[in-house]
Structures are given as C-alpha cells and as structure tokens.
C-alpha cells in the first residue's frame, strides 16, 4: 500500500515539476570543480554566486565536484537545456566541453574561467591573482631573514606557475637575494600533506611560507615553528594569528554581478576579461600586526601603481631558471604569454613538472 502511495506521489511530482517552469526569472548556473566545502577556490566562486543570488529577479544554482571531462559537458548541457540564461564554468578543463555546448545554444551566455577560447556567445575571464601575489612577495621579501621563502603549491599549471613567478619577482624587488623554494603536493586539499610539505620547507631554512593550496595546513606549520606565512583564497589569520602576514584573496562578487546585469540589459558581449586589483577582484587581506609600517607603506605604494596602470608585474628583463632572457628588457609580457606560462623565473628552486 505504501509503495502505491509513493509511486503516486512520484508521478504527481513529476507533473508538478514540469508545470511551474513558466515564470520569467533570470537563471544563472555555476559549475565547480571541487565541493564548495573545500573552503578554497570553489568556495570563493560560491561567495560570488551568493552575491548574484541576492540580486532582484535572479535565481542561481550550482553543481559541485564536476570532473573536467565528459561529466562537465553533460552538466553544462543540462543547464542550457533547463533554460539557464547565464552559465559560469570555473575550471580550465571545462573549456572544450563548454565550447561544444555553446554552439548548440546561441541564446545562452557562457562564461569560462581561466581558459583562452571564446565564441560569439562564450566569453572567458579570470582574475589577475598574480598582481596580489606580487604584492605578497614584497611582504615576504621584506620579512625574510634567511632569504629562503617556501611555497607550497598544488599542481604545476600556468595559473600556479604564474603566481609563483610574480611572488618571486615581488620578493626580489625588495630583496635581490631572496630565493623561493617550491614543493608540489599534487592535491588541492589534503591539509595533512600540505602541512607536511610546509614543514619540509621549514627544514631547509625557509622562514616565510606561502601557498597555492586550499587548506590552511601550511599556515599551521608556520605558526607552530614561529615563522611567518602568507595565506591564499581568504583571510587565514584565524589559523595562524602570530604567523599570518597577509593573504592573497579572491572577491568574485563585483565581476559576477556586473556580467549578470549586462546580460539582463542585453549589453553583454563575449570577451576575454581579466580583471585584477583595479577592479577589486583580487586583493590582499589586512596586514598582521607584525608587519612594520614601512613595509605596509611600500606595498600600498606599489598597489596604487598597479591599480593606476603605471606598474606592470611582468616587465623585462626577466630571466628563467637557466639564466636565459625570457622577457626582453622594457617589454611587458602580453596576456597570452602569461596565460600559458610554463617556466620559472630565476630565483625559484624547483621544477615545473
């Protein structure tokens, strides 16, 4: 008897779910590569989504933990079929799947994060996190006494390599002797492994730990050892109050709300958007009390220069690890080169494999 009831309810709800799709509200979908519970990269995007959700006449939804293969195409396709007006896909591997789907749904606005392909109705975007990394590099370079700075990093992909390079250039701009040692963990979130990686860097004499990882594991290692650290994704000072100098943080809300507004007004056009410090997409978290006033001032001066456009991070001469000049004197590296960066600048100790 109970089974019968369940079956009846099941059929009934199937009807209901198809019936109320007629309302006119703008639907915005997000595809994440990891669970938003990672407290890191996807979580930062989700904070942006929540800002979009708060807009009038907009509903949002997301699918998390979507692998970057055939599963991604299916998820994006389903969003398009369900009548989503704007779809954000927030990981590199979603690029080709999204391009395929975009061709089939010319009226939907597709936006892909961290890639380089685009079409009539598919744009791409990313944040110039490297600008904030450069600033945090200045802090690290000023605060390091051993001139060895440790960097715990997840995967050797351009986004991460670019960040390490910018960080190193920042450190060297105030401390020419600074070297940055890189340890790859091959995982985005495994706090214990990340912490162990940070400890291995402390063992070889690092006295500032930076990270491109989603968990605060490396921060804890620095705090326990009594050295300094620089966080990522969000302000991590609560995990390492005595160590946390600052953090490079994401703030997607202004960009996401702007794009959704533009699509609603019909003014949106597919483009390659790469906002940075100037647009407030990336930033530094507040400085810890141990950062001296003159260091703070120095960082803020450079920050103002980057925002005004007077200063660019990757301006030659920049040499790679072997000493070969990769960016010629006085040349600012074009965005395409930055997007595909696969080599370390001089002063980084580690491999890109």
């Amino acid at each position, binding site marked *: 008897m109970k089974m019968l009831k*369940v079956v009846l309810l*099941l059929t009934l709800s*199937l009807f209901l779910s198809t019936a109320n799709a007629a309302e006119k509200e703008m639907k915005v979908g997000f595809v994440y590569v990891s*669970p938003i519970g990672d407290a890191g990269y996807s979580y930062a995007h989700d904070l942006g989504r929540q800002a979009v959700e708060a807009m009038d006449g907009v509903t949002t*939804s997301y699918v*998390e933990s979507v692998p970057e*293969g055939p599963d991604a195409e299916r998820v994006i396709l389903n969003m398009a079929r369900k009548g989503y007006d704007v779809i954000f896909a927030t990981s590199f591997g979603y690029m080709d799947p999204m391009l395929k789907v975009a061709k089939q749904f010319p009226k939907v606005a597709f936006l892909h994060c961290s890639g380089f392909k685009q079409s009539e109705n598919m744009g791409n975007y990313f944040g110039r996190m490297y600008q904030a990394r450069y600033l945090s590099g200045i802090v690290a370079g000023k605060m390091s006494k051993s001139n060895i700075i440790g960097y715990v990093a997840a995967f050797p*992909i351009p986004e991460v390599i670019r960040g390490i390079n910018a960080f190193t250039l920042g450190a060297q701009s105030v401390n020419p002797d600074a070297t940055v040692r890189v340890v790859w963990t091959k995982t985005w979130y495994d706090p214990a492994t990340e912490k162990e990686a940070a400890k291995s860097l402390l063992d070889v004499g690092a006295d500032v730990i930076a990270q491109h990882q989603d968990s605060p594991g490396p921060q804890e290692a620095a705090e326990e050892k009594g050295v300094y650290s620089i966080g990522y994704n969000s302000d991590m000072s609560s995990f390492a109050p005595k160590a946390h100098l600052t953090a490079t943080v994401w703030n997607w809300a202004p960009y996401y709300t702007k794009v959704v507004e533009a699509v609603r007004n019909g003014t949106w056009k597919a483009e390659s958007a790469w906002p940075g410090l100037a647009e407030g997409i990336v930033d530094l978290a507040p400085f810890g009390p141990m950062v001296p006033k003159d260091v703070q001032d120095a960082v803020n001066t450079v920050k103002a220069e980057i925002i005004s456009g007077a200063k660019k991070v990757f301006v030659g001469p920049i040499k790679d690890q072997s000493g070969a000049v990769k960016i010629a004197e006085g040349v600012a590296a074009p965005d395409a080169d930055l997007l595909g960066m696969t080599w370390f600048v001089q002063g980084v100790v580690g491999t890109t494999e």
Partner: protein
Amino acid sequence: MLHMRIAKRQEPLGLGGSCLVLVLALALSLALSGFLLFLGGTPPVKGLSTLFHGAFGSRWAFEDSVLKAIPIFLCSLGVAIAFRLKVWNIGAEGQFALGAVGATWVALSYPDWPAYFLLPAMIAMAAAAGGFWGLIPAFLRQKLRTNEIIVTLMMNYVAILFLDYLVYGVWKDPTSFGFPMTPAFSDNAVVGKIGSSSINWGIFHCLGLGFLMWGFLKFTRLGFELKAAGDNVAAARYAGIPYDRLVMLVMVMSGALAGWAGFLEASATVNRLQPSIMVGYGYTAIVVAWLARLNPLSIGIASILLAGLRVGVENLQLDLQVPAAFGGILEGLILLTVLAGGLFTHYKIERKRIR
C-alpha cells in the same frame, strides 16, 4: 528477534521473490536517504523524483546514463572474471589508466593511419598495456605468493602518477597554454557518436565483449576450468588444470578489459589524454561486479543503474541545491541494503516454534 530464527531454504529464492526483496531493499535505502533530505530541508519525495528524472526521466538523461555506464561495464567485466577465480584484482583503476596511456601513445604516434587500422591498433595497445599491468601482480602472486590486493592497489597509484607524469611532461600539448593534456586526437583516432545521440559506438564494444565473455564462461573448456579452479584450487590442480597459468591469463584478460575501457574513455569521450579521465571507474567496477554476482548480463544492468544514480544526483544538485556528497550517501545506502537483502536468497526467517 527473540522469537525468530534463520533457516536455510530448500531451494534458492525464485525470480519473483528476489525482485520483491530488491524492491524492499531499495525502498528502505530511499526512505533513509529521503529522511536525510528532509533533515537538510529538501522535500524528500520531490528530491527523489528529481533524481530519478535526471537519471532516466528523458531520452537525454537515459543516454547520459548509458554513456557513463560504458567504462564501468568494461572494467567490471574484467574484475568479474578475476573474482570468479578468487583472485582479488582491485587494480582496474590502474589498468584503466595504463590502457588510456597505451591507446594515446598509438594515437599520438600515428595520427594519419586510417581509422580502420588506427582504432584496432589503439585497442590492441590499450589491452596490452592494461593486461601487462594485470600480469605483474598475477606473476608475483603465483611465483612469490605476494598478496595481490596490496600489489594491485599500490599499482593503481603508480599508474595514475605515471599518467600524470606523461601529461604534465613529455606529452603536454604545446598549444594547451601549459595545461596538463595531450594534443587532441586526430579524427581517425576517435570513436564517434551514434547518429544524433550522445552515445558512442563503444556501446557495441560492450555488447560484443559482454557476449563473448558470456560464451567463454558458458561454453569453452577454459571457462569451465576457471569456474572449477575458483571453487576449489586444490581439486583443480589435482584434475590437471594449470592453475598458475590460468591465474596469469585471467589477470591479463581482466587488465585488458579495463585497458579497453581506458581506450574508449580517451578516444570517444575526451578525445585526448588528461588527468581528469581518472574518476574512479575502476573502483565502481568492483561494486558493480559484486552486485551483479559476477554475471555478465547483470553487470550490464547494474552498471547502467549505478551510472544513472551518479548522473541523477547532478540534477538533484542543480534543481534543489542538494550537496554532491548526498550522492555518496545514497549510493552507499543502496549497496548496503541490497547486499543485506541478499540473505533472503538462501535463507528465510521463521517464527521459532515454542515447544
């Protein structure tokens, strides 16, 4: 429980009874997960219907589920024959990875070969690579009595890291802006889609291989020996079955099938090699093989159901904002209840007679 007792059935439960038990087990797991949905603030019935709708409720959904079932089916078929021989191959994941690597090597080296030549070569290489990865633990098991569970498990990590090494290093596409992926395969190296559907021709590989496997187990002497040796090693040896060779052969077949799945995943669905093709199909295959009692036909059904569950959970996320982790809960509960329900195949619960 005090007044109950468990008794062995004279004959195993018939088809009707088995289905009833299955339905009750599913109902129990759905009720439990519905309760969790309720706790999370989602209307349970609507949630479960959304899930079902996303898995099998439309032509698209059904195609998606079948598409996802293809690699699971092949891996599971391989796992099942090893399990029949009571060789615990936990290594389908690694064999899958090496198969994908082997196929990719052929595809990248000879992109201009015509498809009717290139695809078989890719399959052969994938099967050889996967089979080789299966042979190592079999060899160690028979010659040195090294436990195959630990060897296959550890070799999974090694294979995946080897795949990583290739796509992060020597095979990296120079035009991928530094991202870990090989160049896209040439059209000749791609197993295409059937008509306008999203299902690729790999489904016929599955049908063919599944049928072959069924025939092999049912009609060939080797298939018979395999079953006999699985039931009783000592007796099989006494009867003159070359057990050592049998184990190695079966592990090669098992690895080759997983490798074949790796080929299809690289060629048909991703069109290149990239780290994200490793999503745990090799482990799912173990669950599917057991649920299906190692029977090829049942493996087909079970892999579609499990694939459907995973596809459907996405719908649940999208429409009702249920976290992805709910999929794991539901999957775990279904497995456990169905497994427990298996008791009633051979046993029944009687009321204890009070004398």
